[in-house]
């Protein structure tokens, strides 16, 4: 709990401080937090020892739902859009989850990958409905009935995303500590034992999967609004890879990790783009390898080690 509060405070101070000092940073910050939300979804699965290379799919679904609705009903409020977008991903997560929880490790990852690629290609193909590879524009909606110019809108969005993130951190961390959450983590270390306690690993994983789908969905909806555009790229497997990257960077020790990871990642990438434009992938790849080598359990791994040293109690 203590960590959650520290983390939340630090996060909001950093984000708001930066946004205040450098207005143009607003957008990158929004993006970073969106990535954080999605990465947290991956973290949930990581705790169960599973990895998905297709979760960008859920961000994509939410994004397209938002875009479609905002074109169809231009008067729909931003909050409604976000809510509906996330809901769509949740539902998709429930259905797809029902299938994929039967699989483990590589197969789990591959199946998600395949499904996301199907979505990706379909979005690119059915030009008439999805706008093809150019995607769909998302008009700037009202927030709680208030019309906003780009600048005000972005500020509002940033605050909104930040609040979402904080709530999510608190909620997810609480889930991690709950019976179901701990059992999910137990699934990683010993699935057979779970079964021999009379607990269904599939059901646990399904819960986790739906949660992660929802998180990616929320991220996708916010992402779409902040960009004013959704494209199939949102669902490409490399994007899913980025989510995993961030999740590993942050580590699965604590919900806040994903967001710290996301901030690091976003700025890393921004640098790479500014300093060595052309070689940003190289830089990221190298970082990823180094991180895995030195911090296999991510930034929050440091935290964990210390807690272990303090003797188990959390």
């Amino acid at each position, binding site marked *: 709990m203590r960590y959650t509060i520290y983390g939340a405070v630090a996060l909001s101070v950093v984000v708001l401080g930066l946004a205040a000092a450098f207005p143009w940073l607003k957008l990158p910050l929004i993006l970073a937090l969106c990535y954080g939300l999605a990465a947290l979804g991956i973290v949930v699965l990581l705790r169960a020892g599973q990895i998905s290379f297709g979760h960008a799919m859920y961000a994509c679904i939410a994004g397209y739902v938002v875009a479609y609705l905002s074109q169809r009903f231009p008067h729909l409020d931003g909050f409604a859009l976000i809510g509906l977008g996330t809901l769509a991903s949740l539902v998709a997560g429930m259905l797809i989850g029902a299938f994929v929880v039967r699989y483990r490790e590589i197969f789990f990852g591959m199946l998600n990958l395949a499904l996301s690629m199907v979505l990706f290609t379909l979005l690119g193909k059915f030009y008439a409905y999805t706008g093809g590879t150019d995607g769909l524009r998302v008009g700037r909606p009202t927030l709680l009935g208030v019309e906003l110019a780009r600048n005000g809108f972005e500020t509002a969005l940033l605050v909104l995303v930040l609040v979402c993130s904080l709530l999510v951190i608190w909620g997810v961390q*609480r*889930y991690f*500590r*709950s*019976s*179901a*959450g*701990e*059992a999910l*983590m*137990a699934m*990683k*270390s*010993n699935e*057979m*034992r779970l*079964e*021999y*306690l*009379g*607990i*269904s690993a599939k059901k*646990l994983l399904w*819960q986790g999967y739906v949660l992660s789908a929802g998180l990616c969905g929320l991220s996708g909806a916010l992402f779409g609004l902040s960009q004013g555009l959704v494209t199939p790229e949102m669902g490409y497997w490399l994007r899913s890879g980025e989510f995993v990257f961030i999740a590993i960077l942050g580590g699965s020790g604590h919900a806040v990790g994903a967001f710290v990871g996301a901030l690091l990642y976003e700025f890393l990438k921004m640098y790479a783009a500014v300093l060595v434009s052309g070689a940003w992938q190289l830089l990221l790849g190298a970082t990823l390898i180094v991180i895995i080598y030195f911090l296999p359990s991510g930034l929050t791994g440091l935290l964990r080690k210390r807690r*272990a040293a303090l*003797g*188990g*109690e959390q």
Partner: protein
Amino acid sequence: MSSLLQTRGLTLAFGGLVVANGIDFNLEEGERLAVIGQNGAGKTTFINICTGLIRPTAGQVSFAGTDITGRSPRHIVRQGMARSFQLPQLFLDHSVRQCLELAGMARQPRLPFWRPLRRSADGAAVDRVLELVSLAERQHEPVSNLPEGQRKLLDVAMSLMLQPRLLIMDEPTSGVSSEEKHGVMEILMRALDEQKVTAIFVEHDVDIVRRYATRVAAWISGGIAADGKPDAVLADPTVQRQVLGV
């Protein structure tokens, strides 16, 4: 009144190899059955079939009067038949206490995903079991810190948290140094008596069998060669020759 655990013509064969050979077997409430036999005699296979890990090729298993043949371990456990493993099956990422708390929560119809585990678990029960297996002072350490002996105890303790009617223990004292063995068995038996749990345990050590079993079954090549009072079975020549190898 039917017996607690009952198997009829239980058979399992991989290709030519027969590992369970039409086993008929009864276990009554309150017994302490020691299962002895050479490695590969089919002891563990028998347990795996009873607890639903392996589906038998033929025959049936019934527990407390209901047929459980081919049901999943999850289902069988919920009926009240728990087991511990030869190699302790624990949650290495959790602390000792958390393992027991999780085991305790397992009896709930569904796991709450909002209330913290610590608060929703029945702390008193956990404390009691911790006392029984005397792990109280290490309860907050990560499981990975425990030595083999205590891992075995924790493994059993987790099953005890389920408050089973029958507990099947696969070599509870293997991997435990011979001086610890009796200590471990003492603790286990105390716990079992406390909770009035019927028990089956696979064991190689003859004095332990003599000391703690009320009944002994000797396994030879996938079947029960001798079954009865410890002294009788241990004195049986076939058993002497083929199982104890004296």
